[in-house]
């Protein structure tokens, strides 16, 4: 099943985001071994060089480290993963607030809408 990649943004960035998401969501756990470049490229239906580029980017940010002979692993640094998670949350919340403000809601209204919705879910 090829990954669902959209067509107007660089492919390697989308792969980076996808793997980050898999790390945050726990599909890949700290210390897990990542599939090989070629296997994952075949799964995603992308070029292996593009996958390699995505892996290099993940290594650069420290989320993934490579061991010369055995392969690539997810970082065991849980603070780093947590940081990534909160950053992503902040990003999404900022997007959401911008959208709500476009709809004409004030910050207070947004807050009460959120808490109402969450209460609704809880009941």
């Amino acid at each position, binding site marked *: 099943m*090829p990954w669902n990649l959209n*067509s*107007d943004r660089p492919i*390697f*960035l989308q792969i980076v985001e996808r793997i980050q998401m898999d790390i945050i969501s726990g599909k890949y756990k700290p210390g897990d071994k990542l599939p090989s470049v070629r296997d994952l490229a*075949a799964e995603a*239906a992308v*070029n292996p*060089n593009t996958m390699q*580029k995505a892996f290099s980017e993940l290594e650069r940010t420290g989320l993934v480290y490579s061991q010369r002979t055995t392969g690539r692993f997810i970082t065991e640094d849980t603070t780093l993963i947590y940081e990534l998670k909160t950053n992503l949350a902040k990003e999404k919340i900022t997007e959401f607030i911008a959208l709500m403000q476009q709809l004409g809601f004030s910050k207070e209204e947004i807050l009460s809408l959120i808490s109402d919705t969450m209460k609704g879910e809880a009941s």
Partner: protein
Amino acid sequence: MSALIECKDLTKSYGKKTAIDHISLSIEGGHIIGLLGPNGSGKTTLIKMLNGLLTPTSGSLYFQENPIGAESKKHISYLPDHNYLNMNQRVSDIIAFFKDFYEDFDENRAYDMLEKLQINPRDRLKSMSKGTKEKVQLILVMSRRADLYVLDEPIAGVDPAARDYILDVILSNYEPEASILISTHLIADIENILDEVIFIQNGTIRLTASVDDIRANEGKSVDALFREVFKC
């Protein structure tokens, strides 16, 4: 690493018509390159010169630092844009023929792929649909352990579901050090597996760029850029 293909001022004329007009380019190992251009832009002419089926009118063309010839054909696996196999033969006969013909042909790989695509090796080519014939040809070409695969319109006659599988076949069967040159109009379908694209128009190179650079700089897909550049 030295280039796999190196051409300088390459020109091919058919009488008064110039099909390839002073093209210079080099192709490195380990890349998947899309050769994209409108009809009649010179894609197939260029490909035929790479495979020694046409001789250049002028300019130079080298494969691994040697001129195109018997030696280069041992290392280039070529999928032409038309069918050249004997329609009366069974797939298994053709596989035996290819094995005889090409030192680098891997029989097991061919049978593996046939099985995955549910093609019976005992079937004769003439009993197959157009798409299935194309699949068989692609399997034959990808079963060689070549340094360069040149695929002229590999997925044109194949249904969208099988296209995904064929791309998978291409991705999982080429040698890591090898390069693949794919000529096609179906850009959107293969865009994700390309490293680089070469836009060719009226026999000249309009643009060479990496897919991700195009997306990053233009904010659009290669397919969208192609439609814009070659707008009629």
